[in-house]
């Protein structure tokens, strides 16, 4: 009898927790859709500017999200352009060349890097720009390329780990095949190991893109502003979707601006979920390691 009661209570607790988590997240998503959906129309992006003129950059957009979308894409491209080659190289080194103590020390270092809060990385970038401003050129300040670099640092450890575990996941028999046929290690890496772990690596890259696109704390300190227009140069301020959402939440002045904020939130949410689903479809099981920390 006691056993049955205990089982019943535990079951209630488990189901209740699951329900609570589901409804919490459901409320967040539902609220964003409910308030954001009415804003979804072409003018959300382009405001009163004719779309083609806005896309081609002929006419500036003042009352739409287009500059923020372009800014986000630009900063993500910069970040990924820096972090992917670096992460690929470091991940390959860890999986294929590092052994013993070196490997252990490096893994610890990247675990720590993965744990650094993004605001600290933002602060690092901010003070770096101040130092460069003072000692190198007065033209340098918080800017697009700095944000890209710092976002790159943010996702670097995830990429390294994604590449490393992808390579280490190649079964030993496949790993030895080309070597037993006289391939040297670089050929094995290039012709066998990398192609067969490409899916897992691509998953990691897509998740890293999502992470770059949604992070706010880093760009908050390294160059994102509310009204910069289209990004014109690497050394200038820029607009970005997550920053715009944060900005609206604290300083919206009109109901149109608020509605645009909800539209931006819905857009960013869709983008993040979309990237996640793409990653999921590339690799049915996204490993636990991909979710490690934030």
């Amino acid at each position: 009898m006691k056993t049955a009661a205990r089982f019943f209570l535990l079951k209630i607790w488990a189901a209740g927790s699951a329900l609570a988590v589901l409804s919490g997240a459901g409320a967040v998503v539902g609220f964003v859709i409910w308030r954001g959906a009415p804003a979804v129309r072409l003018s959300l992006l382009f405001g009163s500017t004719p779309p083609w003129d806005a896309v081609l950059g002929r006419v500036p957009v003042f009352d739409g999200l287009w500059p923020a979308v372009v800014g986000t894409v630009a900063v993500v491209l910069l970040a990924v352009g820096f972090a992917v080659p670096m992460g690929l190289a470091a991940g390959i080194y860890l999986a294929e060349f590092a052994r013993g103590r070196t490997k252990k020390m490096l893994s610890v270092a990247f675990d720590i890097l993965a744990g650094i809060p993004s605001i600290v990385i933002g602060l690092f970038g901010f003070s770096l720009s101040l130092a460069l401003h003072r000692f190198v050129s007065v033209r340098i300040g918080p800017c697009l390329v700095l944000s890209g670099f710092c976002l790159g640092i943010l996702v670097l450890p995830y990429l390294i780990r994604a590449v490393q575990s992808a390579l280490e996941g190649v079964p030993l028999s496949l790993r030895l095949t080309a070597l037993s046929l006289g391939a040297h290690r670089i050929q094995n890496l290039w012709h066998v190991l990398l192609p067969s772990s490409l899916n897992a690596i691509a998953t990691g890259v897509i998740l890293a893109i999502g992470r770059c696109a949604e992070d706010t704390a880093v760009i908050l300190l390294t160059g994102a502003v509310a009204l910069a227009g289209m990004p014109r140069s690497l050394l200038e301020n820029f607009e970005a979707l997550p920053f715009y959402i944060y900005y609206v939440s604290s300083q919206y002045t009109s109901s149109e601006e608020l509605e645009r904020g909800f539209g931006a939130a819905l857009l960013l949410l869709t983008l993040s979920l979309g990237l996640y689903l793409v990653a999921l479809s590339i690799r049915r099981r996204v490993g636990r390691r991909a979710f490690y920390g934030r």
Partner: protein
Amino acid sequence: MSVKIRLEKVSFRYGTRFVFQDIDADFHDHELAVIVGPSGQGKSTLLMCVNRLWEEIPEARMEGKVWITLDGRLRCVSDPSFPSPTLRRRVAMVFQMPNPLPMTIFNNVAFPHRIMGVRDRSTLEETVYTALMKAYLWDEVKDRLYEDARHLSGGQQQRLCIARALSLDPEVVLLDEPTSSLDEKAARVIENLLLDLKRQLTVLVVSHSTDQVRRLADCVFRLQDGRLFLDSSLSDYLSF
């Protein structure tokens, strides 16, 4: 008969766990030697000592020397200065589970030649044809050379792997229980192939099946408790 492979005080360990110690053995030209013994005692590891594939396994350590007669001269191939890719081309290996690379049948056989820099299409075609003929596979696959190799049956896959190994014109072939994952009929085909092979080169086979040993072996080694010795109890059956 001249010595083809000589093991001299070969010891092996994974980390701190010794697999075998101070093994001495000679294998001769045009001989099919079978290595038997309880599982988990390092028979596959012993094969990997000959082509130095153990170097790719973390924590593995080999001591001692391995000599192989190449170009009429006994050479110490276990020395790091002897390039392992060269060694592995002349000492081919076939694994327990068929391990075609994830590519077409043609490309599987052409792969080791491509990475050596062979680009000429007709040369590659010639190589693939010869190798598949040697492995009794040509007739079965000549119409599907560009299909994924993983679509072949188990026995065909294993013969493809043998063809791939033979395509490099090796002087020694190491086979690690090559028929254990196959049915009786497919196994027989491969056994006949091996008997054919030993006329041209030296063959080392790890086997678990007494019947197979009886059918194939010129001499039988037993690896047990970290030692390797000639097994006369099985040699009694042998025909030489």
